[in-house]
């Protein structure tokens, strides 16, 4: 019998790359549907996914964040963002579309290492 594994999806892509955001959510949901713990980390340009939704929608883009708001119903455990990635892009943690746990760059490797499977979405 297979034991449960803890997954983390590391989102490094901006929301300007076609259907990738939707496909990322599909993959997240597939893992959650099998009752495995799932976390999400926004890193580098991936933090743009957390930008206020109306900015993205005005540009005809489909943001990830409104979809992520629904993920608590699928037992997505934690949404985190790297503090330095936000700061380098002049994004304030207060202006994001959903609450995130802020991780310092120095904390990220250990945090990822606490998972069994890390899936890069670059």
């Amino acid at each position, binding site marked *: 019998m*297979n*034991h449960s*594994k803890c*997954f983390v999806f590391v989102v490094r892509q901006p929301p300007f790359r076609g*259907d*990738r955001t939707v*496909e990322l959510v*599909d*993959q997240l949901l*597939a*893992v959650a549907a*099998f009752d*495995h713990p799932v976390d999400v980390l926004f890193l580098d340009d991936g933090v743009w996914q957390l930008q206020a939704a109306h900015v993205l929608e005005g540009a005809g883009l489909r943001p990830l964040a409104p979809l992520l708001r629904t993920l608590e119903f699928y037992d997505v455990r934690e949404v985190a963002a790297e503090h330095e990635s936000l700061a380098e892009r002049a994004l304030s943690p207060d202006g994001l579309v959903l609450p995130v746990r802020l991780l310092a760059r120095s904390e990220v490797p250990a945090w990822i290492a606490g998972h069994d*499977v890390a*899936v*890069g*979405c*670059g």
Partner: protein
Amino acid sequence: MVGALIMKFVIQIDASPHEAQAANTAYQFIKAALANGHHILLVFFYYDGVCNAQVSSFAGKDDLSGRWSALAREHGLDLVLCVSAAQRRGLVSAEGKDQGLLAPGFRIGGLGQWVDACLKADRILTFTS
């Protein structure tokens, strides 16, 4: 290989063969892993990676789909395309059927197979652009 640790891998390929080196790097990694006695439980093509399955009109030595087919035939690899990603890119019909565009050795599957394989694997590697 005496005393060597044999591992079970799941490989996810997210890039088309035309946009980046990632798919070719994955191909080379798999060949090296098999040559060293490791097991490849699943090669899962997702995002633009599903384009690796498309038969090239200009098949030559750079035709990666042909090389994937040959590798699958030689080693019994399971090459699985995500059906929804393949539908979005027109590789399979709305009903999820092959429209004659897929190279031999590839089959249509879903994310459930990827999750299941991840549970059995020692390592999951993602090759992305």
